[in-house]
């Protein structure tokens, strides 16, 4: 039985621009020169760039609620209450994010969910 994977959300690739515009006075000529800003980029590892993926399950009027709950328990190892909460979210809101983290395990979860015939997709977080 699979156990609940660690949540790896929230670590996103970023670039940060720092305004360093400076004005230099040439005392001889009296002219002012503007020095262009330096762009400073924060770089993250490739693994970090790979983090923000979500496993989303979409509503389907055919699949039984009890069946969907059972699948969530089996695939994610969630306790019944948590599995039911996600099932009800799918039912009422049309979708639920079941898991978030790195791309490779997310793909495997989607594959497992398709094996149980649930409508599941892999989505990149905004």
């Amino acid at each position, binding site marked *: 039985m699979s156990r609940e994977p660690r949540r790896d959300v929230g670590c996103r690739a970023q670039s940060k621009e720092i305004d360093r515009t400076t004005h230099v006075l040439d005392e001889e000529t009296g002219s002012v020169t503007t020095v262009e800003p330096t762009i400073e980029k924060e770089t993250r590892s490739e693994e970090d760039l790979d983090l923000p993926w979500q496993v989303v399950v979409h509503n389907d009027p055919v*699949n039984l609620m009890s069946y969907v709950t*059972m699948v969530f328990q089996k695939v994610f190892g969630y306790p019944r209450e948590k599995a039911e909460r996600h099932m009800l979210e799918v039912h009422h809101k049309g979708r639920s994010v079941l898991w978030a983290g790195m791309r490779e395990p997310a793909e495997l979860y*989607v*594959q497992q969910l*398709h094996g149980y*015939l649930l*409508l*599941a997709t*892999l989505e990149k977080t905004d």
Partner: protein
Amino acid sequence: MEICRRKDHIEISELDPFLAELLRQIPASASPDGVPSAEQRLFSPPTNGGETELRAEWKIYVEPELRRLFQTATETVATDLEQLNGNEKSLGNRTLRIPAKHADAWLSALNQARLVIAAKNNFTESELSDHFRSPIGSRRDLSLFQINFYGFLQEFILRDVG
């Protein structure tokens, strides 16, 4: 029809010829062949758009795996259903015993059949929620009954497994 849990199997007894025939139709009903909407439902894409590389890889590597998985389940169910082809009188009631170890295969095959029938008939959500529709007056009504009957069996197996 009576359904109950025995030591190592689920027993469906007093099956009249009509319900026995519906059960026999599970493997055929689970096949999406020739119905694009059913094919699309059973083999839905892994993303809602974009990620074309992932979608292409999915078609090549994952879909065949899923096909094998679904086929194995329907084959297991088809083998169990051979019990209904006994020497009893054709109009007599039958008994079907589903081994407990085949529960997952039955859940999958019943689900495949329900999804394919729903896709073929393009049933609306309100039609699917109408569990008390009667009598059966058309092929469409029969298909809806089939979905609900298979759903009832799924519920029983789920309760049993749970």
